[in-house]
């Protein structure tokens, strides 16, 4: 810091410099103390990241050996936190498969079982709550989302005069969320599933703004999953526990469907309203629906996103 001397009457040199030195040290020290103290909340930081995680490469650049190391790291971290040894795998897409989901609006009764089966299968945070599926209660005769009720809680469903429309990631062929991601942390796989590399996402939430279906969810804080509800069958792009500050969303239960199983939301549906399969297989249920059911809707078709999620009716 420079000395403060009125040019008209300079005081004796030594005295001022000593006094000003003390004064300057005092203000510098107090300023530094305040700066250090302002960082006090960082004391509570635990398990935010690790050297391995910080330096980890993008999913598509990992060699099989590196991927194995990453999977081991994830298993280790899960075991440390939950004292359960998970089975973490990286399932690859199958050749000749394009997943499609069909949902029968005539059958859905709005029981929200799919919502909670999904939460259980995919290790979503229970508090704050992260849910991939939103069930809309809509008055008969309208698809106007603005008239939808998200928080219905009657004694029993279905209610007269309404139909129910579960909405989750539509796995668009032309996904706006993928286009806007500045770091390619989300992309479309060959089997049609749009996935997120939770270890690459920077949490800018641009994809959340871009999604026309309110399908993406952000980890606003550390997710919390009760130990007894942890699903230990995990996959890298799927249901492994996420960290604070990253996006997640429905991935058609990649850890189930890439092993040939049906997704969890389908398995729990009491009304059989949900149908899933390989659209490229003419014998599949979804191929039958797309061929034989006359009325089906792709939500917000006018946006050109071309969802792989079809709503249909029994007529």
């Amino acid at each position, binding site marked *: 810091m420079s000395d403060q001397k009125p*040019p008209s009457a300079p005081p004796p040199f030594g005295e001022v410099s000593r006094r000003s030195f003390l004064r300057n040290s005092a203000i510098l020290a107090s300023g530094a103390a*305040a700066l250090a103290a302002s960082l006090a*909340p960082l004391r509570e930081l635990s398990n935010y990241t690790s050297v391995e995680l910080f330096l980890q490469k993008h999913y598509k650049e990992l060699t099989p050996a590196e991927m194995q190391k990453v999977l081991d790291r994830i298993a280790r971290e899960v075991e440390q936190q939950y004292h359960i040894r998970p089975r973490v795998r990286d399932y690859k897409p199958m050749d000749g498969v394009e997943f499609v989901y069909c949902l029968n609006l005539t059958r859905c009764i709005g029981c929200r079982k799919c919502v909670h089966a999904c939460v259980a299968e995919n290790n979503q945070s229970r508090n704050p709550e992260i849910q991939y599926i939103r069930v*809309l209660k809509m008055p008969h005769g309208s698809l106007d989302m*603005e008239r939808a009720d998200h928080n219905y809680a009657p004694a029993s469903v279905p209610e007269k005069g309404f139909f129910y429309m579960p909405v989750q990631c539509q796995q668009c062929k032309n996904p706006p969320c993928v286009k806007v991601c*500045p770091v390619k942390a989300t992309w479309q796989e060959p089997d049609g599933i749009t996935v997120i590399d939770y270890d690459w996402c920077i949490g800018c939430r641009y994809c959340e703004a871009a999604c026309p*279906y*309110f399908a993406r969810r952000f980890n606003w804080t*550390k997710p919390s999953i009760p130990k007894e509800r942890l699903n230990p069958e995990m996959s890298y792009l799927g249901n492994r526990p996420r960290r604070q*500050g990253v996006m997640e969303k429905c991935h058609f239960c990649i850890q189930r469907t890439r092993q040939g199983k049906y997704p969890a939301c389908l398995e729990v549906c009491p009304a059989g309203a949900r149908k899933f399969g390989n659209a490229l297989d003419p014998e599949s249920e979804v191929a039958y629906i797309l061929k034989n059911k006359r009325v089906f809707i792709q939500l917000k078709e006018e946006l050109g996103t071309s969802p792989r999620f079809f709503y249909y009716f029994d007529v």
Partner: protein
Amino acid sequence: MSLRTKIRNYFVFLWRCARIAFAGDSRYYAWMGFLSIIILLGINAYAKQFVHGLIVTGMSDQVSWGVYIANFTFMVGIAAAAAMLVIPVYIYNNKELHDLVIFGELLAVAAILMCLAFVAVDLGRPDRFWHLIPGIGKFNFPGSMLSWDVIVLNGYLLLNVHICGYLLYCRYLGKTPAKWFYIPFVFLAIAWAVSIHTVTAFLYVGLGGRPFWNSSIVGPRFLASAFTAGPALIILALQVIRRVTDYHIHDRALLTLRSIVQVSMLINVFLLVNEIFKEFYTRTSHVASSRYLYFGLHGHHALVPWIWVAIIFNLVSMTLLVLPLSKSLRYLNVACVLAITGIWIEKGMGLVVPGFIPTPLGEMVEYSPSLNETLVCLGIWAFGILCYTIFLRMSIPILQGRLSRANEGLPDVHLVNAR
């Protein structure tokens, strides 16, 4: 002159600039101390956000951007507006504004620094910032408008740092700047200024799922409002400079800026009218967000008072600017303050938040910034103002010739009391 001397001279220049930033009278210390305290409050609030996550803000999955991005958008406009000082000087050879160009560009530098800070605090994983660095990370260019924004903002920062730094250093050395070394950059910066704000508008415009933003008029409106608020802020800043230093700024310069603000404000209000007409006359289902903003929707109307205040401020400011009354500085100042406030509301909260309400699935969740979020914002504002103060503290003595190569040997005493 040998290369060694040149390098030595440059470092002496930097060292003297750094020293002078810490030297001033009691008012300077009080002002800098005040800003530091606000910055510390901001740092503390950000530390909490870093630990607990963005849950400490008022944002949610429904309204996933808030005041951070709103302020970011506004500040990009302020930065772009520096071009409005440069154009008259370099294209129309306006002498009044010549020396003031530096002040405008320094404001742009401070504004860009604020922009970068606002984006950084909005990130959920700031530790993964390096994923955004082209070459090292995985940059989604040209697909993502955000990657364009990273390029144009940092490019604009470098351009302005180069132009200001070079001109000031030449002044310090007492030599005439080599035209080829800055004039091309000046013209590039003019085009670039338009591009930073257009790209920022495209961030919103490109989202088909958000009809409130998916409108081609957003880009032009951004430019018009930026070229209103930016020069208005410079008018105020120049008067502050004139008052607290002995740097002479002629009223004529302020009045030149007034005519820029005047025209931009007229265009801004005209474009606003266009937007409102299109939304409310056609009344498609896409009007929901606008209805929420201007009149409230389904019993939710948090933004209604704000937007009407903004509209009234804009209209009063426009009226004042059009009337000859505002040739008096007192009224001009009132008009500028109203314009800046009005545009900050309209373009920040009034643009970002209603885009999310109702959600694409028709849910109504409102947003209001939390205390913690507000402290972070105030901290960044204070940081920007602190940067601008320091830039002025360095540049004014250089422009006045008080700080120069010629007086290198002298103590910097005479600088301190430049009021």
